[in-house]
């Protein structure tokens, strides 16, 4: 993934600062609670939500089960409609392909629709290295780009910024990138949206190359689908002469009809709308099957693997590839709400990021090894997921991978991971506990010892125990454990056991 995130500290350290940042906490609390209530209402409008969710899960699982077949089918359909399909095994290759395509047009700037895949591969940085300026056109991406910031949410990458901060960023930096912010810009959202409209309009109207991702690709027809709100997507998809779409290989659905499920579940899950303002669907180019003079003359589809096929090899973890990037799991997550998106050290924050990043990138780095633990396993994410990804199940599975090691697939090859360093003391404790817990006598002896020494227990613990006692009192150990009370008062009753 993007070099921006190399060297990130582990999640607990990164989260510590976020928890203490009261502005950030306020921004995140306000935004996530606003959308939470709206989503619940939008979902409640559909009495068949549970069935739509299950159908979405099944469609995605069916796609993944025959992914090779559908990819080939998609390639044929896109090619037949006048598009060109490229295959990129990793981020570097995808960046090379896109940079080469842009260079071939002779252009030095591109307009971009918000796309997680291009964020993931660090496309903007790669293009900049080639002397090509990439302009983000989604409002939140624009805020991040102008603020020289990192995205912190899948749907709303600038969720960590409030309106006042956005105003300041616009007023300060728009002039460096193009049309300056209007004088006397206030922090009302309508004025901020207007400022973005004016700033980006000149870029849209002169753009010759557009870059996008896609929410869905339909294998049987070769149709790509982009779901958006602002119209920046439509601008980038229809005005330029060349359109390059970088899409993860898991974004497929087999049939046109399958869209009837996701076009109902995605808008309600992400922006809590019955339907998002704009959805664009296109199949190839005007040289293929479609209308006269409508849209780009050249269409390139870059199919991106970058760890997805490795994820597919894991029977438990592969369900993460069902994700349709709605971000409902972020909005309900109590950990995300307090730690913020940056703590996840990835363009994919929140619960889905905690299972996606360690699979796409592996668990070798400190941040990736800490992500599976960035959850209290409360299950709110699984409840709202429109494709029923059991995120807690995958989190626990990845914890196992971190502490136990075992077989994984990296870049297509099966390798055996060693248990992660730094868990040795925990492993020993777990081993000791498992020993005691299979021997009731040992457990009882330990409980009695704790009870007898209870007057000497400190209120605060030293060393690793401080993690608890810095913020919480320890429970008081009772005079006798329950089992001794039972033995004392009802001793004869189950003497045979």
């Amino acid at each position: 993934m993007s070099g921006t995130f190399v060297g990130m500290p582990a999640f607990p350290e990164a989260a510590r600062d976020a928890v203490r940042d009261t502005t950030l906490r306020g921004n995140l609390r306000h935004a996530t609670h606003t959308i939470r209530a709206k989503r619940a209402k939008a979902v409640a409008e559909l009495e068949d939500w549970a069935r739509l969710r299950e159908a979405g899960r099944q469609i995605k699982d069916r796609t993944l089960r025959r992914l090779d077949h559908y990819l080939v089918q998609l390639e044929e359909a896109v090619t037949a409609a006048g598009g060109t399909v490229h295959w990129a095994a990793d981020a570097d290759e995808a960046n090379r392909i896109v940079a080469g395509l842009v260079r071939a047009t002779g252009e030095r700037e591109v307009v971009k629709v918000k796309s997680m895949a291009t964020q993931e591969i660090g496309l903007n940085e790669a293009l900049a290295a080639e002397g090509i300026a990439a302009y983000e056109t989604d409002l939140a991406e624009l805020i991040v780009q102008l603020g020289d910031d990192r995205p912190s949410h899948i749907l709303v990458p600038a969720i960590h910024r409030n309106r006042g901060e956005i105003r300041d960023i616009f007023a300060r930096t728009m002039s460096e990138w193009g049309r300056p912010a209007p004088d006397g810009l206030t922090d009302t959202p309508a004025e901020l949206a207007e400022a973005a409209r004016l700033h980006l309009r000149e870029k849209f109207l002169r753009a010759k190359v557009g870059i996008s991702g896609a929410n869905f690709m339909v294998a049987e027809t070769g149709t790509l689908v982009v779901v958006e709100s602002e119209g920046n997507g439509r601008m980038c998809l229809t005005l330029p002469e060349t359109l390059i779409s970088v899409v993860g290989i898991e974004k497929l659905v087999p049939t046109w009809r399958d869209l009837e499920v996701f076009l109902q579940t995605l808008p309600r899950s992400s922006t809590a709308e019955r339907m998002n303002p704009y959805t664009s669907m296109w199949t190839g180019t005007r040289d293929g099957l479609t209308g006269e003079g409508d849209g780009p003359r050249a269409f390139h589809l870059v199919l991106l693997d970058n760890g997805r096929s490795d994820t597919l090899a894991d029977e438990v973890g592969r369900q993460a590839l069902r994700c349709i990037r709605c971000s409902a799991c972020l909005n309900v997550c109590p950990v995300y709400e307090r730690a913020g998106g940056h703590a996840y050290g990835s363009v994919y924050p929140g619960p889905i990021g905690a299972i996606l990043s360690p699979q796409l990138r592996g668990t070798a780095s400190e941040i990736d090894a800490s992500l599976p633990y960035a959850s209290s396993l409360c299950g709110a994410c699984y409840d709202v997921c429109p494709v029923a990804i059991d995120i807690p199940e995958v989190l626990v599975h990845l914890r196992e991978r971190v502490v136990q090691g075992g077989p994984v697939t990296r870049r297509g090859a099966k390798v055996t991971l060693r248990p992660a360093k730094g868990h040795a003391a925990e492993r020993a404790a777990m081993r000791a506990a498992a020993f005691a817990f299979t021997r009731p006598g040992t457990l009882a002896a330990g409980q009695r010892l704790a009870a007898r020494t209870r007057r000497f227990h400190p209120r605060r613990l030293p060393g690793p125990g401080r993690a608890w006692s810095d913020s919480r009192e320890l429970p008081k150990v009772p005079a006798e454990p329950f089992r001794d009370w039972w033995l004392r008062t009802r001793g004869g009753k189950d003497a045979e056991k």
Partner: protein
Amino acid sequence: MSSRDVILNRVRRALSGTPAVEESVDRTYLVEHGSRSTEETVDLLAENLADYRAIVHRADADGLAQLLRRLLSERGARSVLVPPGLDASWLETAGDLARVADRAELTPQELDAVDSVVTGCAVAIAETGTIVLDGSPDQGRRRITLVPDHHICVVRVPGQVVSSVPQALRRLDPGRPLTWISGPSATSDIELDRVEGVHGPRTLEVVLLSEGGSARLA
């Protein structure tokens, strides 16, 4: 080995331990939500369009040209884009308004100088308050309903109205460029609260045109 083969081989190896049986999809979800008369479906469309800040009007064939003239004049439009196949009678009485015929040579900047656009539509979805354009001659190229700041879309009711997303997909041809529009452009990017009016037309007016001359809807 090409990257295509690398990726396809990785995918095949990743799936090698997985049974090849194709999981079936249970499509017992609803084709539409609730049961409504035709009239109620049109009313729901109007209600949901308005809920997302589209301005909804109703007209019959006799009153359409007059209504369009009024809407364009109230808007202060001096020019209006006309897709090639738009019923010529719709803008007949539009007076001294400059009619700009869409041509492939029009640059985006030229489109940007036009005040309004009037189109038909392919299908409208009541449950979601959505109109869908498919690039047919009465709707034109995708860009003409994008760059001008004012879009008037005429929906023939009840003929072009369906209840639900599944019904709409069945009517649409995936080979055509499709644009689904639900209200004017909007954003939720500032504090996850919806604000209307960003890059697409900031004013969307929808005219529900009752078919069959005087057969007025309630």
